[in-house]
């Protein structure tokens, strides 16, 4: 893959690390949630076939994390955006 780092531009996938699904919300007060909710946060994932949200780290580069929308079927990146940017809507081919 060629990944378009928001800070460094397009670079080889070798320089990056995938941090898994994006926009996973850590419970505000973990003590207040039950084991099921906690397990959902820890382990359960959408794992979409097609477009999905992920976060990536430019590990051998600027060291910054960023969000992407990427297809897991053809590996193409549909969007790259900052960690605090709003989540874009996914296209139809999920």
């Amino acid at each position: 893959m060629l990944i378009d780092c928001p800070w460094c531009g397009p670079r080889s996938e070798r320089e990056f690390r995938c941090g898994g699904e994006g926009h996973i919300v850590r419970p505000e007060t973990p003590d207040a949630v039950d084991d099921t909710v906690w397990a959902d946060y820890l382990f359960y994932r959408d794992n979409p076939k097609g477009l999905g949200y992920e976060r990536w780290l430019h590990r051998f580069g600027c060291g910054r994390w960023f969000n992407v929308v990427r297809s897991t079927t053809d590996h193409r990146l549909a969007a790259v955006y900052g960690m605090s940017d709003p989540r874009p809507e996914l296209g139809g081919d999920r």
Partner: protein
Amino acid sequence: MTTRYSALSLLREGLSGHQGWKPAWRNGEPKKAYDAIIIGGGGHGLATAYYLAKLHGMRNIALLERAWIGGGNTGRNTTVIRSNYFFPESTQFYDFALSLYEGLSRELNYNIMFSRRGMWSLAQDRHGLEMLRRSANAMLRNGADVEWVEGDEVLRRIPGLRPRRFPVLAGLLQPRAGTARHDAVAWGYARAADSLGVDIVQNCEVLGFDIRGGKIRGVKTSRGDIASERVGMAVAGHSSAMAKLAGFRLPIVSYALQAFVSEPMKPVLDTIVLSPATGVYVSQSDKGELVLGGALDLFPSYAQRGSLPTLEQVAGGLIDMFPQFSRVRLLRQWAGIVDVVHDSTPILGESPVEGLYLNCGWGTGGFKAIPGGGYCLAHEMATGSPHSLATAFGLGRFRTGALIDEAAASGIAH
């Protein structure tokens, strides 16, 4: 009915121009309703159908396959069969699967070419040595037959092993481990299930579920709706997508696992060798190809294709063990999509939907489990309660935290 396979049948057919061979399985047309439906025509699904029919007396069974049977990870793996796990739950389960494999050719009347060639795991630094010894003792204590070999004796026992960057301090041999012809496992189960009346329906994609009151009532497919109150799903690699159709999520992420073969050569390696230092393992197939595997690709993927960075890593790892293979040429690289769960232990049993049972989460090791996974899923579908070998593999462990962390404990790539 099917012809019984033997040297005699080959002789007879050879003399009559091979006109008399029967289909290995019929192309079933789906009926309106079944006592049980299995989704997924890979090894686990086919084995489930076979054991449901064979051991639980069920006859009205359909197996639904989206494309062609054996086309998922069953037909894309590196065919290693072993049970060298750490925790007793794992060792006992995989050992049971291994023992079924040992008798499978004769049970199915189909030569799956199970080749008991042994598998070596190496220890390549002091810490690795301690961890491997811990594993060796765990296996021995859990009833698996393994052999511990130290120092240069390992090099004598594995001809051609000449490690360079990472020394070999010890090796753990599981003599009963081996390889099998992966496609034949699917075909053998299919033929045997078919002969017991199971309808194997290819090109039949499940598009949704009929769920009422939290209970399964049937499936919607590309070839119409089919009713059943007992449905098992064995679609590893795509488990999350199937679960989504049933309205729930799973603690699974799909990753590509790559595999590689070299050009065929005369016999040169008579065992399976795994190097933990590089994550690379290698064996030689009956056809003469070196069969190589390495670690997972590090991002979620449903694309069954290889990449260059992984190829470079695996090539480096291989020739660190066997520098003479550097001039051998790589013939093919590909990938399978595997269900990765946090603890590298499968998920077998109930789902959040009553009557829908799960067989998934095999990580990189589903092939070796096929007979066991099918056996246990069939047991639970037929009896409604988990088989004693699979009680620890339920979804509940993700809530309670009772994980069986093979990845961390045995340090073996799964």
